[in-house]
């Protein structure tokens, strides 16, 4: 074909057969080669155990709560290494203002993002698979505004990025998980503590429902198993429970200022079960009555015996 290239008139068919088909094949091959190169996707982001199992800070403003909690945990550098790609997962599920206690407090999110950046993280991604319309949620939660000047990436969930993963759960076998979580080096889970009619409380485990796709509304038919399955697969590096305000009624989105109670508390730990167990005490609920906590503890995902944990409580 080489001499023809310059001398003859090309028909459309010839162009297609001689040039485009080989080119497309080449591109496809390169694409396939590219797929093979990635490392194995996993949602287990734990690092070594810190000296304390649980840190509780009380009576502070959001930023101070975060700073004190991280200090007691041994500093953010303990969990985030220089150059890490970090996912920060708050609750941004609802078209509600911070005072209504439906989303993670924007100041808590901001303070954490700053800590992560100061620890040397390369990127910080913040997102939630919102239950309400996402743009309303991101804006009205105050989180978009709180982090806009930090240089973090606040992204809307992109349906392309859900990857079907083998969860190996007792009920959930296979479920779509958000790729950013799988590819990140560290995942920091920052839920807000709320009342919820199916799981009774929405805490660290429930917050993970924001990193998955699929028919989430079907979880409720067996919510405790589902949450334990999910929490057994997605293992955050750190779970920070925002209880600056807690929503005690009409959860999980509330909407009325009187349903949110100012508790000015924050808890942190690497053990999500321990953090959620502590969360129950804020609502005067016996952890033993919480299906997903009992289930997760039975499976060894974490510990719910608060008395046996190395806990430090910081009163400000």
């Amino acid at each position: 074909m080489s001499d023809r290239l310059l001398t003859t008139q090309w028909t459309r068919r010839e162009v297609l057969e001689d040039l485009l088909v080989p080119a497309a094949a080449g591109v496809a091959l390169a694409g396939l080669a590219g797929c093979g190169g990635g490392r194995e996707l996993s949602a287990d982001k734990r690092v070594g155990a810190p000296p304390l199992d649980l840190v509780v800070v009380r009576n502070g403003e959001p930023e101070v709560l975060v700073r004190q909690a991280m200090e007691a945990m041994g500093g953010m550098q303990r969990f985030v290494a220089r150059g890490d790609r970090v996912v920060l997962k708050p609750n941004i599920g609802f078209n509600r203002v911070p005072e209504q206690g439906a989303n993670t407090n924007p100041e808590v999110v901001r303070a954490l993002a700053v800590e992560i950046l100061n620890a040397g993280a390369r990127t910080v991604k913040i997102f939630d698979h919102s239950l309400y319309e996402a743009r309303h949620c991101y804006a009205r939660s105050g989180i978009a505004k709180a982090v806009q000047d930090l240089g973090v990436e606040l992204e809307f969930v992109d349906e392309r990025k859900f990857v079907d993963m083998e969860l190996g759960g007792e009920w959930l076998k296979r479920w779509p998980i958000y790729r950013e979580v799988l590819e990140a080096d560290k995942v920091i889970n920052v839920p807000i503590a709320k009342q919820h009619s199916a799981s009774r409380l929405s805490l660290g485990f429930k917050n993970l429902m924001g990193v998955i796709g699929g028919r989430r509304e079907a979880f409720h038919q067996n919510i405790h198993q589902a949450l334990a399955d999910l929490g057994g697969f997605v293992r955050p590096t750190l779970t920070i429970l925002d209880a600056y305000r807690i929503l005690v009624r009409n959860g999980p989105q509330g909407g009325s200022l009187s349903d949110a109670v100012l508790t000015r508390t924050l808890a942190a730990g690497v053990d999500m079960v321990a953090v959620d167990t502590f969360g129950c005490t804020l609502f005067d609920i016996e952890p033993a009555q919480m299906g997903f906590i009992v289930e997760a503890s039975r499976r060894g995902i974490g510990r719910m015996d608060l008395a046996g944990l190395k806990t430090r409580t910081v009163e400000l």
Partner: protein
Amino acid sequence: MKRAPRIFRLVNLRRLSQAVCFMLFLYLFFRMEFPPLGPSGEMEAFRILAPVGLFFYLDPLLALTTWIASREFLPVLLWSLATILSAILLNRAFCGWLCPFGTLQQLFSAGKTARRRALRSGRWRWSPKRNLKYLILAFFVAGSVLGLQQVGWFDPFSFLTRSMAVWVHPSLGLGLDGVVRVLDWIGWTALADALIAGLRGVVVPFDSRFFLHALLIGATFGAVLALNRFETRFWCRYLCPLGAWLGLCAARAPLVLRKHEDRCTKCRLCLQSCQGGDQPIPGEPWISSECHLCANCVDTCPENALEFAFSLARPKAAERRPLADLSRRAVLGAAVGGFVLAPLQAIGAENAERDRKVFKASDKLIRPPGARAESDFLSRCVRCGACMKVCPTNALHPAAFEGGLGTLWTPIVVPKIGYCDDRCTLCGQVCPTEAIRETTLDDRLGRNGREPVRLGLAYVDRNRCLPWAMAKPCIVCEEVCPTIQGQKAIKLVQDRVQAPDGRWVDVQKPVIDAAFCIGCGICENKCPIADRAAILVTCVGESRSAANQISLPGGR
């Protein structure tokens, strides 16, 4: 005669004006979207600041029919007097210079073959068939006297906005989807991500949306554009009632086309490029009410035989025939048609008894928040689809015949596809004729002494609901139910029931507390029973209707 420098020639100024107006239209269309930045006070509604209704406000056809049909003076439509004035002075310059729909027709009728066809077919010549647009105008104006605002089917801005919102905009989303999937497949993921980040919620939909009845709306749009291949600016010449209205206003316009027959060589270049089909060639009468002032004839004439001039003198019949061959009988006939067809469309006319029958016709006629009572609503809604474009949850869809012919393509909430966010007021912000009144968050949520705006009422289908029918836990509807005036409309009652296998299990069953239900439909939207939800919203209890209620006022 010396020619003006190329850039200042009338045709080029006209092209510039068309380009600017078309881009402005697109810009305003794409700004009918969730505003990128939140309000300063977080308890306030999100507001669209761009004047997205601009072209509607300049539309004297909408002004005329809306004022007459609603029997109320909507001041913002006074802007359209500027357009009327332009027609009184400059003929249908609006059609040729400003109208974005006209520009689109022109784009689709462009090309050498079209120019040749104009001559060969003889369609450069005036035909009384073009009076059809005056009859369409008479038909809709007569309808508006009866309180029916149906001009939106043919009003150019309503037509264009609706077609863009329901057909073009979702198609752009599908197109981007396809491109992104190919890019992902060949491994250019970064480019795909950048495309999505840059375009989503700007020129393609934020969500992957679709609209009911999009096919019919898309097909009419395609047909109107395709007609341009049959004859240049077919829509403008034969169909556009706004063009007809401007043609009427231009009947005595002082702007005339002066023809120098002595210079004319009958090369017919002017006829080839004429947009309006107004017979610019010397020797034929000039039909002034058809002239769009595109100035192609003046520009292409190699002999300078044509020029525009201002003249207050009464024209000779041979020079100019405004509104040629428009027979009084035909106009009257069309107007009578507007009356005669009215009963077909009249659900929603000003008649309390008939108003009461609207929701009998369909319980799914759930109108957007802030919509007026049905008769009042139908006297204003121009079916432009702006509310459907802006709705961030894809909740608003063009109706079919739920309330009779008169509701075709007016907006209804379809909760199964999208719910109405309790803190969103965007549809009322973009409605050009205030068929949907703008609401505040106080209105929507019933704060500060207001009654919340209710779209309808949810009811549980106990034969399908998991806890009721299958003894399974669920409560998703209660979870998502927004809190209005301190309480959720869906409350849970505890019960011990026997499962199909005989075990006794404790379940929480949803029941509706109507006093707190605003009919937002999020329960129906999120119900895990995917095809027909076990909780459904119908329009009973809607704030806008006194009749469509369950109890007496206060007894809800």
